């Protein structure tokens, strides 16, 4: 039943997006370097949208499978991790920025919102209570700073004929893992997406974090032994410093 509904939604959505024109946009920087001092960043997005439309930007990471435990009451008293759930198609990150609150942007706004995005997340077992679980998942991800929905950071500029300039700074959380991300730009008019565009952004580790990650993931044993030895040496060094202090 739900699958069928989803299918119909997809059928309706396809021609709509096919009809929409392309938004020309620039994203800067075009790649995110995660170095030792990385502490979140912001990316500037700018371009042209059809005159009279509102703008929504979405920064998303590749969808992944997430295994979770649902908490429930055991013996009606104690909260426990109960049954295991498999969520599929959960974007690592999903930041939505819009000129006006999405709730005021009609049907398209609803689809672009986190709640709208969550409709495409699959849950195993099939009988799970989506109405309860999806908001909980969003709450968890919001708490981690990985999901966000906000308005006001997009500035609409001067009109250029039938188009209008826009620009925005989207702040990217510090909790970012390397991988492929996309920035999608939607122009919304009368509750419908009239134009859209996509830009890819690659986030990669550079410098010391890149070397450490390489060692940790490709030479685990060596990394573990190194980590232990350095910990022991640091512990010894501090112990000896304390001893010599005491001697004086």
């Amino acid at each position: 039943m739900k699958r069928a509904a989803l299918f119909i939604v997809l059928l309706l959505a396809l021609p709509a997006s096919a009809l929409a024109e392309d938004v020309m946009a620039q994203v800067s920087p075009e790649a995110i370097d995660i170095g030792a001092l990385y502490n979140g960043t912001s990316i500037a997005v700018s371009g042209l949208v059809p005159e009279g439309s509102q703008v929504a930007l979405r920064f998303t990471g590749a969808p992944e499978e997430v295994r979770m435990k649902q908490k429930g009451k055991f013996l009606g008293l104690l909260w426990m991790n109960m049954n295991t759930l498999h969520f599929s198609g959960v974007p690592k990150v999903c930041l939505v920025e819009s000129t006006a609150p999405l709730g005021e942007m009609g049907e398209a706004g609803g689809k672009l919102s986190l709640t709208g995005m969550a409709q495409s997340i699959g849950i195993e077992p099939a009988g799970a209570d989506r109405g309860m679980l999806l908001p909980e998942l969003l709450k968890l991800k919001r708490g981690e700073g990985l999901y966000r929905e906000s308005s006001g950071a997009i500035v609409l500029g001067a009109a250029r004929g039938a188009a209008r300039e826009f620009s925005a700074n989207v702040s990217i959380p510090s909790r970012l893992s390397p991988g492929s991300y996309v920035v999608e730009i939607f122009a919304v008019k009368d509750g419908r997406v009239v134009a859209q565009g996509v830009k890819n952004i690659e986030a990669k580790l550079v410098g010391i974090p890149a070397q450490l990650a390489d060692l940790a993931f490709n030479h685990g044993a060596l990394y573990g032994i190194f980590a232990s030895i350095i910990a022991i040496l640091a512990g010894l060094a501090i112990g000896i410093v304390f001893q010599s202090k005491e001697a004086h």
Partner: protein
Amino acid sequence: MSIPIELYLPIAGNSVNIAAVFGLGGAVGLLSGIFGVGGGFLMTPLLIMMGIPPTVAAASDSNQIVGASTSGTLAHLRLGNVDVKMGVLLLVGGVLGGTVGVEIIKILRQMGNADFLINITYVLMLGLVGGYMFVESLQSMKKAKAEAKAPSTQEKHVKSSAFGRFSASLPWQMEFKRSGVRMSPLLPLFLGGLVGVLSAIMGVGGGFIMVPVMVYLLRMPMHVVVGTSLFQILFTCINVTVMQSIFNHTVDFVLALILLIGSALGAQIGAKIGKKLHGDQLKILLATLVLVVMFKILYELLATPNVLLAYVGGH
């Protein structure tokens, strides 16, 4: 106060404030130096609150404890508080017990409801251990005040005659000079194994089960217990760090290094503070700490969680 330097942790996949992590390490190291516990039960939840994924928090904490317990063991060695022979026996028992514990937890997980059993075991163990220690040390503190100074060791022998007789009946009795006790090596091997099983099931280092075991069942003096416990934890955590690095890639070395510089410093200061306290004072403080942790876990079991979902793999 806080130094505005954020550092990105490649394995945790997040950045943290160096000063905050350093301070956290220092505070936990202090406790570790005073009581001879690893402090994982405090450190891991606080790291999770700072935005570190649970699995990475637990594994990096083990790495950190390697440094802190090296520093702590060194400080206690100097104070003559480490019974190496006893420590090695407990360690060997602990490793064997840990292996058995891991198998038990696998079976429990397959049967379902493992988490329930883990949490209940946790609360019961902490409640029993903390409660007993608290009452016992309170009584002996009162006694010490009443009768100027009584030879408490003799009294203890009378109290546990059954266990004492059992202990004396075991073969290969030997002297443990540092601890000033005489017993069969089978006893620490077996008790170490038992703690190993429990700590593997509960997913903790086992410091605060091991400490009471050494005090009450092995009859070691409290100060030697603290030093020997740290000695033992050092090796347990090296094992965990290497295993986690190989199989789960969850050790964040940068995080561990900042933590351990803080905690190694804390452990040194802790060892000195501990020396100033009497055995009974140490016991009652540790008992209080254990009870606080017990109530915290009990509260988590009873209160409605903020989010009704939890990642699998975390503790």
